[in-house]
């Protein structure tokens, strides 16, 4: 196929949009922590982006998209991106563009995991952990779903990474939080978000970038991309409003709730964006807002310090999205039928794929975090934590 400049153009900009989501996560999280850890949260996002950018071109891409080894992982054929032609291949865009597009997904997944580390992680150990996690958790999961691995073959649908990116990072954040332990003072005194407008700014960048994330995943500038674009927005809006409403029943409707609902809606529609229409998207988003709000309340009631709710929003939202894809997939939109159109198999395949990824991500992350903790120590000292990571890890102050 010859070069399709329109599709190439769309994928170039989509890649840039998704890139922007990683600092977006940084600001989203940075606003939620206490002032003394603001810089740290944003810096972690940037550092993740830099690390994954290098890891990906060196070997991460190859592990994810190299020729399949046992359904589990890619081989090393593409190490250093050797052997990848830069001329438009059969897809109509240069294959290196696919490398770049997938790279930014790998980066944001790891950035989401920082939620579990918030305000207490040692920078040096974090760097090691991030490299291990992206290599041993993210790369295999990307391979399973999209790189020729078992999940794709088995028929699990994941349009833009609901499982690969969100379930994996959300449950990884939970595992990390369990290993690293609660922040000093958690549950004893309140740790309020210090700069909500920065969180809203991060959310704006996330919502904006998500159009590249989901509509870019059509890998073409066509009607599938358009459908993904529109349903992404609809689900986000529905999630924002549903969280706003249910939280209103219990007290004041916070802007953080509203925006968390939007992110929940964005997460949940991610695996479904190419398979469902606009009305199901509204349902998926609305339910995501309520479910994730419930998950957050449950987490709080259990006094778990998965500090910035990556688990409640990305983990639970991603799980719901995977299941919802199995329910609502419509033949007319993306060529697959879900439960509602009578296809129980799709529902099972999706649930199973999501569950497998969930278990894999959670367990392997647990092991990796434990390992790093036992060898290097994941956590800063009590004094460093008290003073804050900005000063203790970076020597900087807001």
């Amino acid at each position, binding site marked *: 196929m010859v070069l399709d400049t329109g599709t190439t153009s769309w994928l170039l900009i989509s890649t840039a949009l998704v890139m922007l989501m990683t600092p977006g996560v940084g600001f989203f999280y940075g606003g939620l922590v206490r002032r003394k850890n603001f810089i740290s949260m944003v810096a972690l996002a940037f550092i993740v982006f830099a690390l994954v950018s290098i890891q990906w071109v060196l070997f991460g891409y190859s592990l994810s998209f190299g020729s399949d080894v046992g359904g589990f992982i890619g081989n090393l054929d593409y190490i250093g991106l050797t052997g990848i032609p830069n001329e438009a291949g059969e897809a109509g865009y240069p294959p290196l563009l696919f490398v770049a597009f997938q790279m930014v997904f790998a980066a944001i997944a790891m950035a989401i995991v920082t939620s579990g580390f918030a305000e207490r992680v040692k920078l040096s150990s974090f760097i090691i952990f991030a490299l291990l996690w992206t290599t041993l958790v993210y790369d295999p999961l990307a391979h399973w779903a999209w790189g020729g691995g078992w999940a794709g073959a088995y028929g699990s649908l994941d349009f833009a990474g609901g499982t690969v990116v969100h379930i994996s990072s959300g449950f990884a954040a939970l595992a990390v939080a369990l290993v690293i332990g609660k922040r000093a*003072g958690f549950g*004893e*005194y*309140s740790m309020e978000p210090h700069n909500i407008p920065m969180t809203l700014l991060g959310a704006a960048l996330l919502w904006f970038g998500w159009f590249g994330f989901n509509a870019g995943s059509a890998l073409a500038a066509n009607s599938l991309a358009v459908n993904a674009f529109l349903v992404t927005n609809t689900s986000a809006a529905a999630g924002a409003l549903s969280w706003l409403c249910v939280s209103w029943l219990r007290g004041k409707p916070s802007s953080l709730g509203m925006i968390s609902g939007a992110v929940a809606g964005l997460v949940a529609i991610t695996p479904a964006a190419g398979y469902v229409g606009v009305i199901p998207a509204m349902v998926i988003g609305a339910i995501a807002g309520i479910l994730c709000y419930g998950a957050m309340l449950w987490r709080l009631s259990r006094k778990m310090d998965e500090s910035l709710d990556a688990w409640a929003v990305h983990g639970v939202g991603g799980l719901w999205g995977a299941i919802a894809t199995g329910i609502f997939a419509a033949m007319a939109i993306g060529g697959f039928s879900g439960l509602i159109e009578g296809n129980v198999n799709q529902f099972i395949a999706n649930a199973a794929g999501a569950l497998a990824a969930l278990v894999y991500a959670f367990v392997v992350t647990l092991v990796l975090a434990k390992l790093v903790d036992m060898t290097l120590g994941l956590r800063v000292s009590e*004094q*460093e934590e*008290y*003073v804050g990571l900005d*000063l203790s890890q970076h020597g900087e102050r807001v």
Partner: protein
Amino acid sequence: MKMVKAIIRPERLEFVKKALEVEGIFGMTISEVMGRGDQKGISLQYRGGTMTVDLIPKIEIDIVVGDTDAGLVIQKIRDAAYTGKIGDGRIFLLPVERSIKVRTGEETT
């Protein structure tokens, strides 16, 4: 009239407020300050080097009370602000000659 000026850990503020409310003491003015005590702040070790963070964020609470209440206020603040670790703060007692309520003009000497 006395002014109790307490410099405490920010995270103990809620405890102090609660403890005072129990005694019916509501009026107070607080501000964000930075401070260090005799330890010259907190020393962090890293790769052999040492970094001293000498100014740590604190909350300052000013409460003007009658002479007789001052002791109680100090006691309550002390108990509620206490953690036992370095940096718990100080409480100072200053004399106040007059106190006027702007709205009513009411004065206590």
